[in-house]
């Protein structure tokens, strides 16, 4: 419905003083968008981690120290510390790959969850050494692994 057909008769008109105090909402008609919402959504801020390496290492230690004697990859990946590592997002990938290079461990679930990629062909699935090598090569090609 166009504005011209809306009945505003029961709404009192704003005074000059009220109009001066009012804040414009919505997108400005000209110029660049400013404000906190736009800054939060910028690519630079999206990639800037809101955590440090100490927090990552703490989560890794917790996950390893609380590891149960389970064969279930699901149970291993559902550990709260592991889930929080996934939540650290793309900036954690170089650290995860460095961990994987340092010590073979169950990082494949997290890498798939964060990156949305799976460089491991189905016939290599389950082979921990080969999967690690494939992911490290994937990281080298993208500059995540030096």
């Amino acid at each position, binding site marked *: 419905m166009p504005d011209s057909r809306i009945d505003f008769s029961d709404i009192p008109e704003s005074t000059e003083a009220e109009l001066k105090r009012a804040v414009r909402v919505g997108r400005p008609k000209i110029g660049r968008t400013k404000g906190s919402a736009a800054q939060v959504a910028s690519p630079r801020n999206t990639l800037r981690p809101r955590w440090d390496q100490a927090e990552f290492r703490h989560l890794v230690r917790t996950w390893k120290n*609380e*590891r*149960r*004697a*389970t*064969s*279930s*990859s*699901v149970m291993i*990946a559902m550990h709260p510390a592991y889930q929080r590592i996934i939540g650290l997002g793309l900036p954690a990938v170089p650290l995860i790959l460095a961990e994987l290079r340092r010590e*073979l*461990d*169950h990082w*494949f*679930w997290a890498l*798939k*969850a964060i990156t949305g990629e799976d460089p*491991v062909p*189905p016939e290599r*699935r*389950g*082979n*921990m*050494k080969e*999967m690690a090598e494939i992911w490290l090569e994937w990281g080298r090609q993208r500059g995540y692994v030096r």
Partner: protein
Amino acid sequence: MSGSWLPGDFPNLSAADHEITSAASRLYNCIAWAAGDTQRWWWPDDPRIGYGYWPPGVVREETLNAFIAAYRTLNYHPCSGPDLEKGFEKIALYVDLIGVPTHAARQLPNGYWTSKLGDFEDIEHKTLDCLNGQLYGSPVIYLRRRRSS
């Protein structure tokens, strides 16, 4: 020597019940070890996010039927119980309180059992019950195949 696992994982496992027979390894798990595979981590996780090996053609789900079907590909079939039978090797499958498979143990020719404990060590244990508890539940089904000569 004590294993790397958390003490609370196996409250019924005493030093007299078992012997550690390998170093800890993340290359394989109990399901693989029972199947004779020391190169892969077997688990029927969702391939969209998981990474476990599962025999091709077998449904990938955490159910007893899926695990039985996985071992069927190696000629294991359900049998009546865990007692040692000449000429056969057996596998015991454990499930937790809600029926989700948790563990597999393989019988040795002497009647004892061998288990890989997650990504920790392999052990030889005298009974199946010593691994019972909240983590593994208890054995509910037994499979057997003819022992190769």
